[in-house]
């Protein structure tokens, strides 16, 4: 019986036996996944590189320097210069900022739209669900790249417009995941009880179903960001990206395409590798989170 008469300790002191919550377990499982932790490290590195880097390694990314174009890497220009004389390392930071901001914002926007759409469809059920999900099917049937090219033929968006368009073409997969989650949650006792005592539908979705789907939402967001960063790279390659003198990694890659045949490897390898590393990192984090939270996701 000795365990029962242990002296009570004030809550919050260091050796209070802490509750091992689901989140804590998930965090522990995540940290044991070496690839996921490596991914986290890569993301942190690139955030520092793009946002703090320019303070340390300051370069002129607005004015052209036509007397020093396509220079090979050297002591003054660590990664050489591009076709209009911009320092390539500085440009990598400058373009990375755009890629990261657009990718994060578009990925988050897509998840928000998809989550609300999927939750409402799954919760409502019946013909509302049927119509909403057929719209999702129709959206999935049209490849995002094709829609983006049609949009590019109509208009040239600014940065907020680009984020909006990317968000609007990529919310479909998360909406399916959240709908599936909602279908299992909406008949739980706490939701049924809430409805029985007169709680509104909005309250059921916002206060119960979405908070209980939070692990699915987090995992979906991570994969969505990876996809969005990749999509930004495609979009710039196809000519709908941010307009010069601003750039992003995809824009740098497509600008370097012709130069690559002249042997100017420093114009394509750095932005290409940066895209691969960051997208890989978000995918690895997503894999790690999915396994840690034990939710169904893609792949």
């Amino acid at each position: 019986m000795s365990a029962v008469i242990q002296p009570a300790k004030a809550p919050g002191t260091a050796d209070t036996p802490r509750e091992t919550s689901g989140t804590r377990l998930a965090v522990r499982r995540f940290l044991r996944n070496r690839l996921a932790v490596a991914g986290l490290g890569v993301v942190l590195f690139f955030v520092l590189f793009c946002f703090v880097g320019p303070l340390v390694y300051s370069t002129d990314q607005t004015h052209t320097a036509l007397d020093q174009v396509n220079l090979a890497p050297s002591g003054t220009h660590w990664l050489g210069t591009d076709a209009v004389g911009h320092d390539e390392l500085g440009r990598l930071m400058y373009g990375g900022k755009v890629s990261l901001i657009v990718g994060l914002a578009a990925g988050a926007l897509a998840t928000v739209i998809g989550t609300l759409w999927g939750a409402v469809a799954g919760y409502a059920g019946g013909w509302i669900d049927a119509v909403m999900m057929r719209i999702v099917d129709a959206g999935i049937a049209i490849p995002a790249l094709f829609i983006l090219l049609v949009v590019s033929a109509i208009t040239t968006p600014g940065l907020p417009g680009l984020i909006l368009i990317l968000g609007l073409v990529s919310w479909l997969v998360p909406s399916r995941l959240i709908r599936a989650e909602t279908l299992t949650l909406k008949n739980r006792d706490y939701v049924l009880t809430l409805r029985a005592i007169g709680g509104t539908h909005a309250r059921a979705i916002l206060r119960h179903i979405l908070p209980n789907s939070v692990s699915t939402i987090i995992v979906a967001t991570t994969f969505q960001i990876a996809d969005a960063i990749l999509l930004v790279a495609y979009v710039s390659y196809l000519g709908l990206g941010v307009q010069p003198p601003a750039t992003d990694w995809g824009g740098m890659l497509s600008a370097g395409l012709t130069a690559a045949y002249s042997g100017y490897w420093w114009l394509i390898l750095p932005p290409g590798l940066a895209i691969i590393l960051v997208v890989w990192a978000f995918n690895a984090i997503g894999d790690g989170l999915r396994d840690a939270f034990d939710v169904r996701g893609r792949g």
Partner: protein
Amino acid sequence: MSTPSYLIRRVLQAVAVIVIVTIVVFGLLHALPGGPARGILGPQATAQQIARFNHEQGLDQSLPVQYLHYLNQLLHGDLGTSYTLNAPVSRLIGERLPKTLVLTVLSLVIGLLLAIPLGMWQAVRRNRPADYVITTLSLIAYSTPVYFLGLILVLVFSQVLPWFPSQAPQGQSLAQVFSEPQALVLPVATGAASMVAVFSRYMRAATLENLSEDYVRTARAGGSRYGAILRRHVFRNSLTPVISMLGYYLPVLFGGALVVEQLFNYPGMGLLFWSAAQASDYPVLLGCVLVIAVATVVGTLLADIVQRIIDPRVKAGRA
């Protein structure tokens, strides 16, 4: 649900999706700045010219009437006329689509032939170094923009090592395309590489799931050899979810073809679409979107039906 009523339900769903796609495409066509008239007559057209054009083309009628008119044209195989190439869109797509299919089907078949054994092998050797290495490599390939992958392949296998041409076959007919097989290598390799990355992941996950099933343990307890169980049971059971993914994967395939065709200058539907986007040739753009969307909806429908026929567990609602 019995199979006939499932089929009817599923076909009706597919029809509904196609109707929604036509509404989206019709909506885009009318969201153009100045409408189709501005697109055809150009930015120099006067207001009177646009008004006359709209009247002649029935564009001053109400939207629902125009939509029904548009649907009627579609049902007669009329996708409109290209602004710049002065030819019916259906004929342009009809000429280009077979070439795109050659490219995508070759990439798909080669990709699957590599991805399926690879994914199974990874699942069998799960959590060993080889599995980690391949998982990481396929995730890296998955994270690589297809055009960057293609560019690297061109630089290595066409510039540094002059083994293959950097341009795809330029022939107009299919026979001409096949007459230059070495020119198909790099475009197909680019497409296949991204395919391997995606499908080895699916195959690995599907095989892992099956390896933990009771029937594997039962078969082993009954004395069957592990290799035989893998070949005879696990392989077939893991293949069904992968095959059903193919239907959903069609849009990605076409998106990939768009990039590969542009990169290797291959005269398929993707390149047609790309040049149409450069020229703001909306009928061609939207015609391609429509064809791809319908192909995807039909592909998904067929994949679902095939899966239901070959996998009795789907009918029982367990898979």
